[in-house]
């Protein structure tokens, strides 16, 4: 019913941002095993609990050194969560910490859901009131209206897919269960080959969804969102703000050049690949021209662009140029665009107006007022913009408008069929449920092949229905009985 507590989870335990030291925490039965694989140190003596060891954090996949750091282990129940725990202290760079998390994921850990470490501490009776409040806040944040609505749409689409798998399993299960519970009724004996092919059809769905959920694939194929705008409008701080509110950590991909910075975040349950670009300006400087080419390249592969403007200053030639570039690349028509009026904590530039309700009109007017002499852009900035492009005022200082921006990003992403399926199952809970279902289906096939009694096949299939029901929120019994009674005439 709830998150499982017998697997190993990983998360960055220190607050986001550039601190002196950052901690990656692993909690669960395999914490020590995974922790040891992530750590190379000279001494080969056995690690003892509550002791700090110095060494090199490595990615066991290729042996690459990630950082120098300290490792400390705690044994259940003497730890923060009450589980076996490993904490890796590294230098505080977010990139390094995420790489360590990624390596832990690759070694079999699961990304912790928000508040999950604290939840385990609860379950193991190791928590104080202040921490309890913190978890309550996290859950509340998860259920705030805007995020929930966006998530609701997403989960609706996921549930649809999961339901097709679940229905197939129920169809396999119904004749078995009917023949068990109503042995004297005329229930035709279940056909093993038919069962196997129904199970296989469910396996196909879970395999597809799981493939989409693989962390690496989300990084590669998540929604590519380019943050663009002239220098000094607050692109980087906006990126940081979006990362600060990220819901889970996924594999980072380092930027390929100094000019574009790429980060991944889960927003509203969907994976976003955020790309901070250099501004596009008319320049003869060959180095800057390379930067601009790269920006163009990033834009041409993006699913979504955020055009960041400075609301406290008049629009400039550079704003205009970027807007034109976006229009030429098909944003706002074939691809999605969101206009972000940043720095809304400062006094707005008069042409943008003050009133939130008239903001959309104001920005159109504002753009028009400044750019009327350039017809192509005015049409972009006029009607078309007003019709289909969300305009959102934000302040990375006060946090104003960030939830609305996230919602708009998720909504924009949902409209894009190509990105949807890759992003569908980003939540750890869903991945866990799908893995459970997939294992149960494989077990059912094996039980069938081994010619064991059908009630054992039923046990596997019920596990699968249960796991899939964790996503769709349906219970095994009611639906199973519904399937039995609608399909077979049972009457004692």
């Amino acid at each position, binding site marked *: 019913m709830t998150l499982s507590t017998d697997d190993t989870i990983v998360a960055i335990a220190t607050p986001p941002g550039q601190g002196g030291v950052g901690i990656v925490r692993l909690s669960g039965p395999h914490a020590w095993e995974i922790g040891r694989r992530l750590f190379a140190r000279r001494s080969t003596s056995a690690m003892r609990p509550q002791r700090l060891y110095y060494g090199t954090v490595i990615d066991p996949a290729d042996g690459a050194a990630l950082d120098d750091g300290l490792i400390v282990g705690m044994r259940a129940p003497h730890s923060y969560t009450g589980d076996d725990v490993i904490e890796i202290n590294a230098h505080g760079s977010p990139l390094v910490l995420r790489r360590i998390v990624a390596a832990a994921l690759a070694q079999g850990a699961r990304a912790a859901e928000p508040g999950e470490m604290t939840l385990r501490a609860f*379950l193991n009776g190791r928590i104080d*009131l202040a921490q*309890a409040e913190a978890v309550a806040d996290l859950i509340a944040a998860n259920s705030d209206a805007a995020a929930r609505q966006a998530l609701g749409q997403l989960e609706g689409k996921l549930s649809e897919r999961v339901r097709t798998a679940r229905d197939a399993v129920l169809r396999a299960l119904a004749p078995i269960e009917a023949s068990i519970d109503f042995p004297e009724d005329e229930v035709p004996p279940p056909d093993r080959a038919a069962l196997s092919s129904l199970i296989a059809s469910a396996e196909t769905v879970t395999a597809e969804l799981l493939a989409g959920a693989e962390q690496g694939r989300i990084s590669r194929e998540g929604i590519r969102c380019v943050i663009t705008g002239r220098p000094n409008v607050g692109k980087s701080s906006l990126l940081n703000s979006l990362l600060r509110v990220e819901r889970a950590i996924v594999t980072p991909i380092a930027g390929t050049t100094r000019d574009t910075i790429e980060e991944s975040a889960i927003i509203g349950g969907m994976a976003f690949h955020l790309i901070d670009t250099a501004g596009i300006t008319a320049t003869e400087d060959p180095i800057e021209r390379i930067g601009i080419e790269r920006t163009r390249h990033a834009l041409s592969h993006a699913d979504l662009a955020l055009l960041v403007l400075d609301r406290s200053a008049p629009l400039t030639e550079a704003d205009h140029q970027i807007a034109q570039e976006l229009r030429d690349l098909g944003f706002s028509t074939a691809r999605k665009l969101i206009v972000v009026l940043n720095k809304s904590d400062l006094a707005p530039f008069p042409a943008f107006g003050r009133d939130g309700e008239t903001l959309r009109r104001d920005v159109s007017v504002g753009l028009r007022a400044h750019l009327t002499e350039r017809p192509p852009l005015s049409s972009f900035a006029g009607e078309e913009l007003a019709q289909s492009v969300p305009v959102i005022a934000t302040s990375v200082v006060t946090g104003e408008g960030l939830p609305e921006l996230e919602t708009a990003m998720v909504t924009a992403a949902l409209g894009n069929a190509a990105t949807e399926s890759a992003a569908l199952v980003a939540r750890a809970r869903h991945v866990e449920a799908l893995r459970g279902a997939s294992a149960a289906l494989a077990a059912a096939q094996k039980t069938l092949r081994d010619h064991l009694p059908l009630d054992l096949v039923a046990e596997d299939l019920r596990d699968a229905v249960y796991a899939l029901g964790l996503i769709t929120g349906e219970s095994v019994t009611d639906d199973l009985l519904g399937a039995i009674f609608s399909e077979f*005439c049972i*009457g*004692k």
Partner: protein
Amino acid sequence: METDEINEISDEAYDVVVVGAGHAGCEAALAAARMGCRTLLITMNLDSVALMPCNPSMGGPAKGHLIREIDALGGEIGRCTDRTFIQIRMLNTGKGPSVQALRAQCDKHAYRLTMKWALEAQPNLVLRQGTVNGLITDPQPGPDGRPHVRGVISGTRRFLARAVVLTTGTFINGRLITGDKTTPGGRAGEPPSLGLSEDLQRVGVRVQRLKTGTPPRIDARTIDFSRTQVQPGSPLPLRFSFDPAPPDVTLPPGPPAAIYPLPPEAVTAWRPQLPCYLVHTNERTHEIIRANLHRSPLYTGVIKGVGPRYCPSIEDKVVRFADKPDHQIFLEPEGWRTGEVYVQGMNTSLPEDVQLAMLRSIPALERAEIMRVGYAVEYDFVPPDQVVRTLETKQIAGLFLAGQINGTSGYEEAAAQGIIAGINAGCRVQGREPFILRRDEAYIGVLIDDLTTQTITEPYRLHTSRAEHRLLLRQDSADLRLTERAYALGLVGDERMEAVERKRHLAAQALDALERTIFTPAATIQAHAAELGMAAIPQKMTATELLRRPEATYAQVAALAERVGQPLPPIADAATVEEVECRVKFAGYIERQERAVARAAKLESLPLPIDLDYASVAGLRTQARLQLAKIRPLTLGQAGRVEGVTPADVSALLIWLQRHARQPRESARS
């Protein structure tokens, strides 16, 4: 003065009063009395004690499991069935051991009399005829905020009690319906119980209506048995009870009635049995039903209660499965020496003339005469979200409900609730801890947990598919699971407990020996294996590994071990053999289910207060808030099973619990 004296005389005081002597009431009263409580069992008609108003059949999948569990707890239903069955069979023999189940056909009247005699023979138990028409409750709420029940009123008499168990079946505001005829009644020929429903509502209990039905009974002498298919009883000895003593059979004296043909293949040496007889409906039967649907109270709207999906009327079957050319009809003798035959599968509330016409459309029944007409019954039940897992009502302390009043169907379901209500009434009187069975411990636990967390929309019947952990709940392991707990309460004697301990010990010994016994592929061993009909041993393996082969049996493996000089403990008892074989063959499955149980145990053990103000719990979604406030689960685990409650809601409740533990009741009260 004078009237006071009369009251003094007519007031009788008991520890526990049980109202209704059906299958729930009998087990409740026996359990309370066996625990040492002075117990009164009061019922409207002493000739209807433990009556089987529907099919005189006991057991089947899940239901047979319940009987074994009740028996393991010291209940009477298993022993009473063993003494009175006219046929017994093991069902699901082609399937795995967890779903095999016993089903018996009882002599309806022998059963009733045998159970009545068990009640009369029970010390501490008083059996009385009378109609209860009111409850006595304290006018003021007690320390837990609820009024306490103080007894029941029967006419002008008052029976005082410290706990009351209501097992009123279909009698509360019962209404019998055949065609366009409606008569008030709890069962055919018996009046309903009026007044109690109003009294329950007066103390704040909600009631709703349900419907169930029963088929006609026909005269055996008017059946052409030559045109039926004979279904004989088991050729091997079978019985429900774990009691080491074999049952003393209490059927009516003499051989079975000669009207029932007993072909040689249906004669069973170990105990005389009667067969059942199978026939089928045909297109003509269905035509008659379709032509008369307008006269069916189900379709005319006379019946408003909801009927069960698993026990549809014949009219429902014909309408819903229109393309099915025939339906099975089992003709089941209602007893050893009676010509009344139960027409199973022909459950109906169509008018009598239609019932007769459709019966006579079946070749074997062309001359059939009806002895009793089929009917539907509509009755009040108390939606069981109003009871907790001890079956005590949430509104009234000391008042327990069991059986059909809780919206269930079936003798076994009723008896299971009866024994739990009776035990808990006893626990309450004796100041003991509540007696609760978990879903992973017993089908009884599944039944009661479902009742207290799910919304009942049709009469509830237990199915094995309702249990998450079927492999842990085999019928043959009920004694291992439950008898020790019954023993602690005085419900079973030393002899039963010792038998369980022997079985447990022997199984453990055998498992240990299997693990330590090693077979090598040596030629001598191969030769022995071949002689015993076993496949070759390809490499060195333990006896456990050998037994894990699908076709291998303990007897075979033991024989092989014997021949190579490493004898395994001999096991004579089939149930113990099965315990050992299951533990070995299905070890992977059992371990998986045990892990799942252990994982859920943490949540199951966290109690939620019954008066929790869900509006004050931060982070709960509205739907969860409403459902939880209605169902009021008692543990966090139960809360998770309530419809519409998500894992996030469970987390929110966890946090609330933590806070509550730190700021105890003072702040909650102020």
